[in-house]
């Protein structure tokens, strides 16, 4: 087991190095002069040349890459052309809101997906009434869901807010839900939840269906398994059979799908954050792309890629825990 975890971590590190190399190369071949972008188009050629030298842009590419990696290790992602602040501090400001949104949304997706799967596999009565609509909703692109949600729940019914987080964080962690509790402010906590519901659900629906479908089919095949028949012949109660024998043996494929979807959600957050004016890195990225703010784009890409790799490594380890045969 330990050996497996170590090997899985090692491969994650290799993947991360590949990711940095790709980002660096993209940056190197991208059109547009970062120095001009930074100093402005009116800068004197002499100033540009001096800046190039200072930034190391005249060095050979491998040397530049090593410099890039060294900076990365020191948490230096360069300066944003747009905000003229370090990308690292920009990310630190925007990342918590995104992580908060995606985490909450992921939990929504897991709950919805599990209900979808279990009700289908166990043929609960009336389950078609919500599985049908859920399936239809999952086919809609997120921006349409977002707009629909805003029109209905904000504009028409006025049940839910439609933009922002509702408050700024003042606490130590940067996560509004946690900070509001730490600082003893239940009012803000409630407001934060209100603001999370719409974007959270919009972002959750497609992953919920993807996870739910996989989980449903593996539940159905596990229910047919001989060992479930053995468990039933022991005279165990129905829910005990499901909880002890069915769930754990069905969870593997759903786990890897959940990992995949969590990665997709960090990518899909760009659209949702824009529509809901969510102060996260998706919004930051959307604002950086039009002005070719490459350090910012690279920073966000690196963060999202890192999250993706870490999530999948964790999923692999979890799968091994769920099924002892995998580490045998």
């Amino acid at each position, binding site marked *: 087991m330990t050996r*497996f975890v170590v090997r899985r971590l090692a491969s994650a590190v290799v993947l991360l190095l590949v990711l940095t190399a790709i980002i660096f190369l993209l940056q190197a071949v991208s059109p547009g002069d970062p120095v001009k972008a930074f100093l402005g188009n009116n800068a004197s050629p002499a100033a540009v040349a001096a800046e190039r030298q200072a930034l190391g842009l005249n060095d050979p590419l491998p040397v530049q890459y090593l410099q890039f990696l060294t900076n990365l290790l020191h948490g230096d992602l360069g300066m944003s052309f747009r905000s003229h602040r370090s990308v690292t501090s920009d990310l630190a400001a925007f990342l918590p809101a995104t992580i908060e949104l995606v985490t909450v949304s992921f939990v929504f997706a897991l709950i919805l997906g599990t209900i979808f799967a279990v009700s289908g596999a166990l043929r609960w009565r009336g389950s078609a009434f919500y599985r049908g609509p859920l399936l239809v909703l999952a086919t809609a692109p997120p921006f349409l869901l977002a707009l629909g949600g805003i029109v209905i729940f904000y504009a028409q019914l006025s049940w839910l807010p439609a933009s922002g987080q509702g408050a700024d964080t003042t606490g130590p962690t940067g996560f509004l839900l946690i900070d509001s509790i730490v600082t003893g402010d239940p009012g803000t906590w409630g407001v934060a939840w209100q603001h999370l519901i719409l974007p959270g659900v919009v972002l959750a629906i497609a992953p919920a269906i993807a996870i739910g479908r996989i989980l449903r089919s593996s539940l159905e095949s596990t229910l047919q398994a001989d060992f479930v028949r053995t468990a039933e012949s022991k*005279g165990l109660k129905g829910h005990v059979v499901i909880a002890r024998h069915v769930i754990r043996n069905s969870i593997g494929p759903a786990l890897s799908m959940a990992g995949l979807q969590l990665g997709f959600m960090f990518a899909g957050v760009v659209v949702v954050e824009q529509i809901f004016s969510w102060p996260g890195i998706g919004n930051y990225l959307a604002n950086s792309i039009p002005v070719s703010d490459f350090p910012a784009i690279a920073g966000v890409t690196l963060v999202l890629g890192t999250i993706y790799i870490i999530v999948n490594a964790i999923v692999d380890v979890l799968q091994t825990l769920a099924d002892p*045969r995998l580490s045998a």
Partner: protein
Amino acid sequence: MTSASQTAPQRGGVGEAASIEGLHISLQRDGVRSNVLRGVNLTIGRGEIVGLVGESGSGKSVLALALLGLLPSAAAPEITGAIRVAGVDIVHGSAEELRTVRRDELGVIFQDPMTSLNPTMRVGRQVTESTHDHAEAIRLMSAVGIADPELRFRVFPHELSGGLRQRIMAAIAVAGRPSLIIADEPTTALDVTVQAQVLDLLRELRDEFDCSVVLITHDLAVAGQIADRIAVLYAGRIAELGSVSDILHRPNHPYTVGLLRSRLSLETPRDRELLTLRPETGSPGERMTGCAYHTRCPLAIDRCAVEQPPLEQGGIPAADAHLRACWRSINDVQNLAHHSQGDSVVTPRTRNEAAAPAVRVEGLHTRFVLKSGGRKRREVHALRGVDLTVQAGEAVSIVGESGSGKSTLLRVIAGLTPATSGSVALAEGGAQMVFQDAGSSLTPWLSIGELLRERLLPLRLGDAENRKRIDKALVSIGLPLSVAGVRPADLSGGQRQRVALARATMIPPAVLLCDEPTSALDASLAASVLNLIREMRQELTMTVLFVTHDLSVARLMGDRIVVMTQGEIVEAGPVNEVIEHPSHPYTQSLLASVPDIGVLA
């Protein structure tokens, strides 16, 4: 004994663990409803072992599930008649009542312990689920013959051998001191030496725990080893019911006689065609009038087709009765039992010592790396220096248990698995292989004609000649030409295995490699496939390498027997020598484990 079982209420009380009366069950599959059980009457006395014997499709496993109240709801079962287990009405009882009966009164052992145990739960916990008590679980695990139960308690099923897994199943089955254990083909998935142990275990459990056992099996000899009574099931009805000695030595029903005679044993004459039952043509379960067996019965008279013979006068039969459902007199049936042997076949002595050997294997080693789940690697040394020469025209049987390397050897000779070191030389013509599971070795979406044509493609014969060859191949395996148009799924297991044989032999190979081609078939079908292989061998003067776990089959199919264990050949010699004077202890233990019923008296 624990205090809980001392205070348990008295069970049954009327001297029977379970009773089945007038039981009809129909199940639906792919929208088609079929009558699986059609009027079964049976009692299982306290402390009694009842063997329930029948071919596939006889309804024996459905009867087991019905006793458990676990018929799959997807099959929309319709049940009439009565099943009572420990006084509880299983047919009409509520789900909660059935669950309580399963928990308190029933234990079950299924066919394949690998799939019947939860792969992600430690085996001890699976036993504890039934005992609710760690100490009791440990005690039961040692009672079923598991050494070091404390150590084994913490392992997962895949870390145990097949025999130990089935012992775990047995521990689960006896947990809670059930009044009835249902064992559904408990030994079919196990090696012969393990099979004998599991049967002994079942009898010991009956003696120690004073429970009854329903032993479901396709093999009369297996039932004969431990049962007190045997019920022979045919097409959802009991054809014959009686004590073990009555059924095995004084069979009164033509079907029982047929089953006994088509059973292969170490006494089966080698120079005669193997006896088989007439093949089933329709679906007997759908024939509501007459005796379900009459289309296959050598003694059938007109009455058999129109009037169904009763097993008895109705009601539940007495415990010691020898009952049968047949219109013919007992004398006629007994005559059948003693008469008629198969036609004699001249065993070909086409072995040609002068010609180059068909197969020459020298110093063969094969190692492979098992990657379980793509993670940790485990190296398996499947063949450890095998030398084998097979003369042209010779038939050699390779015998061994699972993991002996016998199938690997065949696959290496066929070129399907690479050798790590050593050499394999084949005569011109190459090798063709017939696999155990004909169902999965035939491409499901191709018709039989297309499957056979594939083999002819390299010869570029043209359509007309291809058609002629395919027809000839179908005739040679005794199938109608219309079979060319159907897909494998529409054929029975025996027919599929015939097609696989036709495909392998339509261009005669230098050597025909058979990997347990009959172990998934009912006895009679198996015998007919073996007959076919022997016929083909005679006609085509083919060299045959026949892999099997069954010494009685090996004896019939080979001129020589080669015994393998743990990747090595431990004994080799002419059939009679190996069977009558085995020199290696492993061969001796294999021979001792062959379940036998003695000569039909």
